């Protein structure tokens, strides 16, 4: 795709995203799209680790969930409800959690790292599930109210849709900036060949640690938005299932693409909601979709777009030949 075409696609996407709630789309779908923005943020945060740093982190849901629980606990126990303090609280909670996770999990690499992050996610889930006095246990915490964003009331679905979209766009731009920076190049070096990075004088551990912490800020932000979206937080939000689902979004969308995560989140959110109305076995269908993507588009669905575009152009060019 040419640079100009890319800009046209981005602008068209932006206009559609901004107009959708005004076009008479049913509220149900507006709220599913809101969910899509939220999950796209956490999926991008994971893609930042997997696709750019080479760390497959299974504790992303824990960070997401910690952000969400921070909102709930802050609101119900400490009366922290204003917009900016809550966002800051959620992000800081997730970042601190990741800072501790990193100290433990980064003692190992590869498969060892994956297993450590699974264990860490389970620990946080166990806390949420069993520390009833703080987390409400299985019942979770209800009674979270969306605050006003400056002069805007976002208690209605449409208003909240815009909040989540704005955060998604901001996160995407910020992450794209980071991966294109000199620091981003270092992360890619760590992903490719840690041994050479050490020989060049890079403290590989430190860069992995920083990447985990940066990633956690976005996961925590998504968690905050999720808590406001549902106005409820339960242990499911930080289950290992949730971590796996985020990973599936990343693989469906395309590892190392960032913007592909929007597609991944869209598919998982819409499939889970639409199909669960039809069948309880919707996860089986997701499994089939996942299988097909891994088999036929291992680079993710988003890489199919330029390929289809090229084929379309090829066909058109062929038709124009005399």
């Amino acid at each position, binding site marked *: 795709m040419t640079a100009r075409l890319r800009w046209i696609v981005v602008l068209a996407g932006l206009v559609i995203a901004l107009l959708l709630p005004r076009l008479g789309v049913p509220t149900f779908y507006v709220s599913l799209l809101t969910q899509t923005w939220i999950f796209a943020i956490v999926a991008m945060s994971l893609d930042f680790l997997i696709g750019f740093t080479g760390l497959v982190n299974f504790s992303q849901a824990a960070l997401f969930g910690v952000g969400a629980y921070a909102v709930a606990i802050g609101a119900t126990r400490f009366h922290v409800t204003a917009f900016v303090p809550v966002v800051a609280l959620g992000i800081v909670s997730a970042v601190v959690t990741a800072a501790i996770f990193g100290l433990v999990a980064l003692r190992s690499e590869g498969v060892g790292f994956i297993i450590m992050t699974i264990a860490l996610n389970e620990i946080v889930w166990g806390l949420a599930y069993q520390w009833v006095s703080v987390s409400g246990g299985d019942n979770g915490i209800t009674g979270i109210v969306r605050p006003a964003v400056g002069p805007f009331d976002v208690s209605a679905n449409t208003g909240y849709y815009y909040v989540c979209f704005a955060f998604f766009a901001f996160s995407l731009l910020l992450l794209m*900036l*980071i991966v*294109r*920076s*000199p*620091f*981003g*190049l*270092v992360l*890619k*070096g760590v992903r*490719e*060949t840690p*041994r*050479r*990075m*050490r*020989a*060049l*004088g*890079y*403290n*590989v551990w430190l860069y992995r640690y920083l990447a985990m912490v*940066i990633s956690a800020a976005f996961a925590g932000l998504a968690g905050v938005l999720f808590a406001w979206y549902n106005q409820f937080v339960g242990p499911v939000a930080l289950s290992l299932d949730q971590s796996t689902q985020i990973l599936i979004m990343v693989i469906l969308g395309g590892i190392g693409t960032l913007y592909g995560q929007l597609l991944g989140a869209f598919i998982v959110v819409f499939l889970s909601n639409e199909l669960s109305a039809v069948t309880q076995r919707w996860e089986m269908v997701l499994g089939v979709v996942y299988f097909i993507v891994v088999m036929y588009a291992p680079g993710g669905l988003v890489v199919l777009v330029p390929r289809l575009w090229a084929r379309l152009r090829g066909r058109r060019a062929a038709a124009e030949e005399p």
Partner: protein
Amino acid sequence: MNGEACLALDGVSKRFGSLSVLEDVSIAIRAGERCGIIGPNGAGKSTLFNIVAGELPCTRGSVRFLGRDVTRLSAHARARRGLARTFQTTTLFPRLTVIENIVLALQASSAERFAMLAPRGRYRARDEEARALLDRVGLTAHADSPVDALGYGDKRQIEILLALAQKPKLLLLDEPTAGLAPADVSLVTEMLERERGGVTMVLIEHDMGVVFDVVDRLIVLHHGRVVADGPLETIRGDAQVQEIYLGGKL
């Protein structure tokens, strides 16, 4: 350096369980020296490099670099002090472009490596520096291709170029010409020749032609021990060395 050696190994031993790979190795290399390490497969040459570079801890002994004890320093900390190395098997960043590979080596010691809120395009000077280096080996045409797409000979040159880009005080070269076609071997030899008088160099090599062209001093390792160490000409004529390493002919 007040007469202190650039690199000094004192009684370095390495055991893997009951297997002794290095046995009481003591070597001192002066600044500006070009030293070759030869020995049959399994003599412990690469293990020695890994210990000097900080990738492996030694079981006993100490490593001093530029007058400081670095025995307990990590690999990256030693690299920051001016120690660079290449690898026997090409160890580059395959999916990054040639320029990006070199930039990674160049920015390793600059604060720029932590800059995360400005695109790399802002650091045009760094790219120019990388291009200039690439120009020296005549690979400018490949600047923007991923390293993976390069031929083996080109990759081996980039392997060395990365280490040179670190502007090291000591350069460890682990079989730089391994697996190269004769034409490419001479390219690598020329590249190392050009650095003569500059960087201190330690070279592991099986190709005696390259060794004779590049080094002035030769160390022979056998079963983890230094069996000969001296000027190239002396070692060349050493009967014991010819016996164990060259099977009696040279």
